[in-house]
């Protein structure tokens, strides 16, 4: 299949996640900065999304029959670009343009810049509401496509997220799959200390959602959760709450003082790549 997801066939999900992490570290090195800890943390979620769950055509990113994947968290663009490169939506050689002038890969994700980027994120708390509108629109068109919205635990502070959560429950949007990356870190510190959004499972249940909470760095658990979200017949929007570890896969960064914007010294990028390569899945 010339246009099947992923430009390299027969690769395990664990290897996809590893390759996504590698892309992210290489982009981080280009700029000497970036939301690398988030990208490493969410890589498994993106691997399962793009190489197990989503239907799409890499060379036709606006194909009407695709599942829509919205990145509400604009600063996670480095992570999504890494996945889109691995999926063959973006060419590998553009990786080195990340965050540069005239690049199609700006630091914060925008729909007008990047093939495969469905919405402009960054002003947080927007994605879930747009997803509600798209899910309603897809139902109007009798489409079988799903809308996925990847958002962060920090976005749970935004009132607009809960407006959208209530609307999705009220309209029983069973074609909407929310994915929350709970890495428990936002700009001012640990998310639950900045504003305690727990307990999340009963909150979303009370808003009328089908809720699953999994280890977001456990690929088998993610596959099972995404399968349930896609194949369940309950007339409810679905949410997969993913508890992830910041900087996952690069132990010396995992252990660094936890910070929203992880500090990485110039010489550490090569070291991070080397550490990743040592841990390449068999």
């Amino acid at each position, binding site marked *: 299949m010339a246009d099947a997801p992923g430009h390299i066939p027969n690769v395990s999900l664990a290897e996809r996640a590893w390759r996504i992490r590698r892309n992210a570290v290489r982009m981080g090195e280009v700029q000497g900065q970036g939301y690398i800890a988030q990208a490493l943390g969410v890589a498994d979620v993106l691997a399962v999304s793009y190489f197990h769950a989503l239907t799409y055509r890499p060379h036709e990113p606006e194909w009407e029959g695709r599942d829509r994947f919205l990145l509400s968290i604009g600063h996670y663009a480095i992570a999504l670009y890494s996945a889109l490169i691995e999926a063959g939506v973006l060419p590998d050689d553009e990786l080195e343009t990340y965050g540069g002038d005239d690049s199609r890969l700006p630091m914060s994700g925008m729909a007008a810049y990047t093939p495969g980027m469905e919405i402009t994120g960054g002003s947080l708390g*927007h994605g*879930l509401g747009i997803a509600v509108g798209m899910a309603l629109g897809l139902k109007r068109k009798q489409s079988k496509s799903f809308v996925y919205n990847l958002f962060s635990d920090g976005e749970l502070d935004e009132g607009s997220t809960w407006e959208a959560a209530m609307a999705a429950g009220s309209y029983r949007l069973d074609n909407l799959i929310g994915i929350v990356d709970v890495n428990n870190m936002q700009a001012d510190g640990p998310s639950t200390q900045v504003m305690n959004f727990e307990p999340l499972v009963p909150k979303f249940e009370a808003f009328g959602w089908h809720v699953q909470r999994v280890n977001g760095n456990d690929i088998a658990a993610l596959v099972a959760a995404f399968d349930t979200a896609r194949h369940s017949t309950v007339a409810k929007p679905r949410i997969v709450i993913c508890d992830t570890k910041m900087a996952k896969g690069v132990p010396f960064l995992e252990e660094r003082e936890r910070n929203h914007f992880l500090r990485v010294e110039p010489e550490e990028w090569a070291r991070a790549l080397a550490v990743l390569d040592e841990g390449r899945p068999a």
Partner: protein
Amino acid sequence: MRRSKYLRPAHLENAGAGGVRLKTSAMIASIAGPDQRTKPAPFGHALVELAKTRPDIVGVTADLSKYTDLHVFAKAYPDRFYQMGMAEQVMISTAAGLAREGFTPFATTYAVFASRRAYDFIFMAIAEENLDVKIVCALPGLTTGYGPSHQATEDIAIFRGMPNLTIVDPCDAHEIEQAVPAIAAHKGPVYMRLLRGNVPLVLDEYGYSFELGKAKIIRGGNDVLIVSSGLMTMRALEAAKRLEADSIDVAVLHVPTIKPLDVETIRRECAKTGRMVIVAENHSIVGGLGEAVAAELMRSGIHPPAFRQIALPDAFLDAGALPTLHDRYGISTDAMTTSIKGWM
């Protein structure tokens, strides 16, 4: 300055006070004068008519369909109507999502809520993407006596800085009916100020037709040029008739599209020699049509013999009866006529 809340109303303190006391009109009351011709819900009916040939049109509201005349559309096309509850942010985001899927949403609420509450969502989810969402908002400027919570005196000032957004301020029912298909045909986001309920019918008598982006001379005159938008154009036309008795010859240039501004027509009319230019708007004196026209004249080196503004003060306005408030803040026909005479 507002009177202290610890003082009783003055008329209760005056022995033997009586006479007629105006009441705060209901939120949904018409702005029409007692002897004005009107049409009911022109926006709702025009949208229903347009939707017959435009299956992409859908309606979205935040618990204000009845108060924005969208209920007419909701009744005609229940499956094309989305009630989002009293939640303006998700209403706008939903409209953005529907537009992304190829639909043309008309999203309605009050002007205060769209401008003050949903701004970032309109800016990022709609305007930045140049999506086809038409935001149609009731209670523009001073059209309710409920006080600042409902008086959108600065909505145009808020929205003028938003790239890609077209801003329309129609005058009457005739213009609203024509503006609905015009803004639907326009590619990109539009903010339209809406008069709802029984809306005055004025411009049909002048053989006027709405064109998006065009300012038009409604009547000629040699002494004064009133440049106006929205309901102030009907006030300007009434004032112009009254001023005939004082031999003051008033021209009225109606500017229903605030952005992009028809600078060519404005420059041409303001450059005609000898006429005082008065900009009249149902909006704060800050950031509206008046400042837009003044800046354009300065940029183009056009200097009329005098430049005046009839606009709402830069203040939180009072609650009360609408006719009282329009007199108090200078936008009634009486107040406008008096101001113009004083400037001559």
